[in-house]
């Protein structure tokens, strides 16, 4: 299908973009890589009258380290993340997650910010963002604010970002010592999105038992979540296969699971437990090697 007609704007700076968002309000949409928005427009699930293409704002596209934190501009593409040597050494979970996303075209055009704001329940990034406790940096008419990942994802395709705000950056902390991470995903056979995706960051205490484990889960419910019961059961325990399995079994506790033609809700919950166990296992092995 062809989208409804719209007016196309190309701001050069963040301020200009914010000005346009303020001016056109609810009739407008921000365009980043377009790999989620344009399909929605073609299906006429979205019909903005004004399209504000932030794709040329260079100030939104970078990966850097500052004040001991890693910071990614919202416009950073999946491929840039996948191929960043800085991230490979300091936060390998992000390149590992990027590798699992879509195809070459999607990776070259799709952006981290776009994916997070779109908040597709089967998107990959949210799991990783939860596991590394990322911080989203938002700019709006009243200035800048930071939103914790666990507060950012509100519901199916809904986030804490206000409609007059722009997501400008994502901040994550680098991998601490004795810490390993991992992202494991079951690809939907046609779309490639996550039927279930589990991201883990796990730190071992000096004793070799688990200090802290953070488990982000995507694909299972309407919104991505932290598997809190699993995390609780892991803390302080030694990472034996049995313990991991017991803890992972709770990875979808209380979740009202999605169901589609490919996977029923029950199957998704079952997969969440299997993938959680495998991802935790892998993260623990990596932590032991550091």
């Amino acid at each position: 299908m062809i989208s409804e007609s719209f007016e196309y704007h190309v701001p050069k700076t963040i301020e200009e973009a914010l000005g346009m968002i303020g001016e056109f309000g609810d009739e407008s949409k921000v365009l980043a890589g377009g790999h989620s928005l344009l399909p929605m427009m073609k299906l006429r699930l979205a019909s903005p009258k004004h399209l504000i293409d932030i794709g040329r704002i260079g100030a939104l596209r970078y990966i850097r380290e500052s004040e001991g934190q890693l910071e990614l501009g919202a416009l950073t593409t999946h491929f840039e993340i996948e191929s960043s040597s800085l991230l490979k050494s300091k936060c390998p979970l992000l390149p590992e997650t990027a590798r699992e996303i879509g195809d070459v075209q999607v990776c070259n055009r799709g952006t981290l910010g776009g994916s997070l704001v779109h908040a597709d329940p089967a998107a990959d990034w949210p799991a990783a963002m939860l596991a590394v406790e990322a911080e989203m940096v938002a700019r709006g008419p009243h200035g800048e604010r930071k939103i914790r990942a666990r507060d950012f994802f509100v519901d199916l395709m809904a986030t804490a970002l206000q409609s007059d705000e722009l997501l400008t950056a994502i901040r994550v902390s680098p991998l601490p010592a004795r810490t390993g991470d991992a992202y494991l995903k079951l690809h939907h056979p046609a779309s490639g999105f996550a039927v279930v995706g589990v991201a883990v960051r796990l730190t071992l205490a000096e004793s070799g038992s688990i200090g802290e484990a953070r488990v982000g889960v995507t694909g299972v419910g309407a919104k991505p979540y932290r598997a809190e019961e699993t995390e609780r059961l892991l803390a302080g325990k030694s990472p034996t296969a049995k313990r991991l399995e017991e803890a992972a079994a709770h990875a979808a506790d209380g979740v009202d699971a999605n169901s589609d033609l490919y996977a029923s809700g029950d199957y998704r919950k079952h997969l969440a437990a299997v993938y959680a166990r495998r991802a935790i296992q892998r993260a623990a092995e990596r932590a032991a090697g550091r």
Partner: protein
Amino acid sequence: MSAGSIPNSPVGSRVPMVDSFEKVTGAGKYADDLVLPGTLVGKILHSPHAHARIRRLDASRAGQLPGVFAVVTGKETPVKYGILPIGHDERIFADDKVRYIGDNVAGVAAESAEIAEEALRRIRVEYEILPAHLDLEKSMRAESNLIHDGRPHNIEKEYHHHFGDVEAGFKAADLVRFDRFDCAEVTHAALEPHSTLASFDDDGKLTVWSSTQVPYYLMKTLAATLEMPEENVRVIKPLVGGGFGGKSEVIPLELAAAVLARKAGRPVKITYTREEVFYAHRGRPRTIVELKTGVRRDGRLTAVEGRVIQDGGAFCGYGPVTMLYSGQLLNALYDIPNVKYDGYRVLTNKPACGAMRGHGTVNVRYAFETHLDMIAAGLGIDPAEIRRRNLLKPPCVTINGLRILSYGYPECLERVAEASNWSEKRGKLPFGKGIGIAGSHYVSGAANPIIRSDQPHSTVNLELDGEGTATILTGASEIGQGSDTVQAQIVAHELGIALDRVKIVAADTARTPIDLGSYSSRVTFMAGNAALAAAREAKRQILNAAATYFDVPAERLVLEDGRIFEAGNRAKALPLAQAVLLAAKPETVLRATGSYSTPAEARGGKYKGAGVGPSPAYSYSAQVAEVSVDVETGQVTVERIYAAHDCGKAINPLTVEGQVEGSVWMGLGQALEEEMVWKNGRLMNAGLLEYRSASTLDSPEIRPILVESADPEGPLGAKEAGEGSLAAVIPAVANAIYDAVGVWMTTLPITPERILKALEEKQRRTGS
């Protein structure tokens, strides 16, 4: 004469297809690429109801919209049609009733797609909604609100065959086993959506360019439904982007474009959206297969009883043929002395099913080959071995009247067993890994035409000019399978000329001789034989002329590399071009015709339904699948497929391997993920994202193995290669899953959730 004896012959060599250049460069024209001056866009109004009576239809507001040139409704299209003479139950546009969501209610032709869509929105239809028959097993018991008149209990057709005496066979058996299989409905998903351009000239003659596998039947149906003489209808098939059976009967848009063009007085083009393609469908029906088989302790089969129910959708289509193939091919791969078959084709309020690659055989073959492995497991016989113990002994005629001359099945079984190292692996791989074997076969063309007639199935005209160039005129339809290439190779081979000296004009009913079309894997065998006959006739004329020139008997002459010489005396040669002119005198073009009709002995028995199933020759396949199963997630990974196919003679090994690989892929899609999911008559996955076909990225390693049994009646020994391999892959995978994790998968597709469920049940049963 064996092909190998001619040096430099393109036959047997891996030449690229003759139309590959235009396809690869994008220069080739498919139906939707064609535009004539003044072409309008045609659109069809589809029914939103699965079953409803049309109370009132008012299209006047659509016609008043500026830019709309024609609006046609069911009142103007009274003639019924259908691909089978016994099944004329469709109309271009419904008159009184709609029978599925997507049924065709009216058509418009307008200057643009937007205007045409607006015009559709302006058509008012008042429906009286009728109870819809959506469940196969309930529909066949229905008493009221039936889908068609004259079809009690919504049963389109039933067949009951009994050969030998199954009761006696079961008595003689040591083991009698019963199993039930359920196969989901699947569709072709050809990449090119259906597209048709129709145009009338000033004399009222119609030309239609369409993405069709059957230009000849389309021409006949256009003439019948538009009530025109056949000589005024011309059908041209441009490049076709895949058919797989979905374009092997007349599809509503082909007729709709023509009636709209007639009314508008301008050319009209209709191209289906992907959603419309899914609703036009004509794919493989959901099929329930029940098998009861008797077997002796040594593995010899004594009797088979099959009951097959197919959910045919709202119209007859190819239904009775599908039903018959399911029965006729049930017992024709093995030697089974007693066979009973009960087949029911049931109508439901869904799009009609039809022919799809491996037409009629695939689901029954999956069921039988899996069932056979279950039997082998029960007897403790190796699955490859039980197949060996039940082979036919050709030449022979099966108990239901199928004549079999060449039979490469035993060799196929041996070759895949050897290539896969079967005996080292079966039953010996670690838990979670498995290997399975299965066989299949298919016709090399239906021995009997769809419309009864005494004329040849294929005719090929050949013209040679004074430069030694040969032009083939053939009605055969290239749909990507290599139809044109095979005919060109055969002619080049026979005339001793290079492949690029052969031109081909194909599938234009005004210019090319009659050919029945691309269905039932008939083209290489039938059009190939016609091309071979035409080339031999041309060669005879040429050698006769050359014999006069050399003053030696024609039998002493050799035609090779574009030259004619006396055997053993290459030095004194007559160029072919010159010989052509001598032979053609007083004309300057030499013409020869060849045709192919099936021999009477190959046309089958005399009982009701005997006409479907017989073929002049059958292809054979055996496949071994290696899989791994993740027992925690139920995910199956197919690691490798060894696919041996007996194609008689590989005229082009490259394209035969391509067909085998394509069949394997398509079969894997059906085995593991494809299913049309219906809810209240609506298709829940009418798009390529939701309807999951395997892509190239999903392909396991496929090792094609070509077996050449040299059929005595095939062109240079060749048989079919495009369909037979599909059916074997599904049971090979199911049997490999059993080897891997010990569960029998009797429902298609074999989804991860079904695997997990089967594993749970097994655990409950055995406690292990």
